[in-house]
């Protein structure tokens, strides 16, 4: 599993959104989170304000907020869907978003309403290229 390191890690089984979010797609379900770059830019996450289960989220729109000591950041939905689960463990341990952004630091799980949107997301090589620019 990828963990935070000084150079940043980007698993190749994920799809990426240019606003520094990732999606792990499994059938009509997806797990969403923020990338190593996003958590590193934000700094230590101290609060995750999740949407409620059942909320409809819209690709490219904000669905939640993560906050560090000094900053607030909107979390952008990489795909459209309905929230089926939120990572409740982050209420007590929001730092998981920094320590393990692709594992224990996942944010929400959604049932996809437009699975075809996945084709518009970036692969790992494209996402890395975006970060290099």
């Amino acid at each position, binding site marked *: 599993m990828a963990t935070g390191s000084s150079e940043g890690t980007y698993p190749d089984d994920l799809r990426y959104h240019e606003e520094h979010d990732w999606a792990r797609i499994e059938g009509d379900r997806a797990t969403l989170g923020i990338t190593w770059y996003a958590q590193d830019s934000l*700094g230590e996450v101290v*609060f995750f*304000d999740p949407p409620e289960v059942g909320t409809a989220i819209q690709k490219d729109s904000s669905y939640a907020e993560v*906050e560090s*000591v*000094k900053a*607030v950041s909107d979390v952008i939905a990489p795909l459209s869907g309905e929230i089926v689960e939120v990572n409740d463990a982050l209420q007590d341990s929001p730092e998981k978003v920094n320590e393990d952004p692709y594992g224990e630091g996942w944010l929400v799980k959604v049932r996809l309403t437009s699975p075809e949107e996945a084709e518009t997301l970036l692969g790992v090589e494209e996402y890395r290229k975006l970060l290099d620019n």
Partner: protein
Amino acid sequence: MSDAALRRTPLYEQHADLGAKLVPFAGWEMPVTYEGIREEHSAVRRHAGMFDVSHMGQVEVEGSGALAFLQRVLSNDVAKIAVGGAQYSCLCNEEGGVIDDLFAYRLGGDRYLVVTNAANHDADLEWLGRQSREFDAIVRDVADRYAMLAVQGPHARTVLEATLGIELPPRFHVSHPQIGRRPALACGTGYTGEDGVELLLDPEVAVPIWCELLEAGIVPCGLGARDTLRLEVCYPLHGNELSAERNPIEAGLGWCCKEETGFIGSEVVARARAEGTAEKLVAFEIEGQGIPREGNPVMQGDEQVGAVTSGTYAPSLELGAGMAYVRSDLAEVGTEVEIDVRGKRRPARIASKPLYAKRS
């Protein structure tokens, strides 16, 4: 302001080498954090941290009329400062608004030093220069003569004294040690709520001294931790809690205003003290979840009763907290309000100052 125009302190390369996150602040490129705000915050609460505050300005006031002049422009009773003493004051305009808040140090009989906020340094200089004309006092911008290092925390003094081989002045005093074989000033002041000192160094020796202190285990801290530390102990920040539109009374700084000295703005301050003010600066804590931020409305029912001036996650309290101006009738400790954090109402309670108090 473009990045090209940003000024750098003598320690800029050290910050960059340590991997600091550098941000523009008051026209300077300053470190906001090195390893994380929380870690740096707790290093200062528990051990010792150092902040490069070389962006702050220094103004020297000298002459037989120096005391009379400072008594006229500063809100506190400057005559009370003995040689080697330090005192906090507001610099007020004619309307009693706060141009800046600052420490004045008496370096010698007729010689004082005031330390200004970086963002206000030029305006302060202009104001002081103008007001000094009727006095036998010279106002000198000496900001370029000093690098400034705040070393703060329960172990700051012992580590500093051992490392630099000097004796430090007590709290609210200033001494003239040699540091790095150059004349320096050591001030028993700070902005963290912890014991510690602020060192004014010859810029030429700033790098070796920084490295020596780093070697001695003092943790480099950025402006991020400086802000969370000062907020927990409710020290006001000019530009947030203080401004030319607010007088010291509503900001809770009546204690450093001595109207009988006749300082500029004292009539307005006296009236505000006697009659009360429409709003007061309070500290508050969020009850439950949510982190307040500057500008968030303070609500009671459907009515906006104030606004947040500074808000943060408070690392030592482990909750969202801040300061706000609220209607004076709601300023009492214990009053329940709500903070509108980007559309979400977060229950909050007016709390006593300071929010964080040392448990010994």
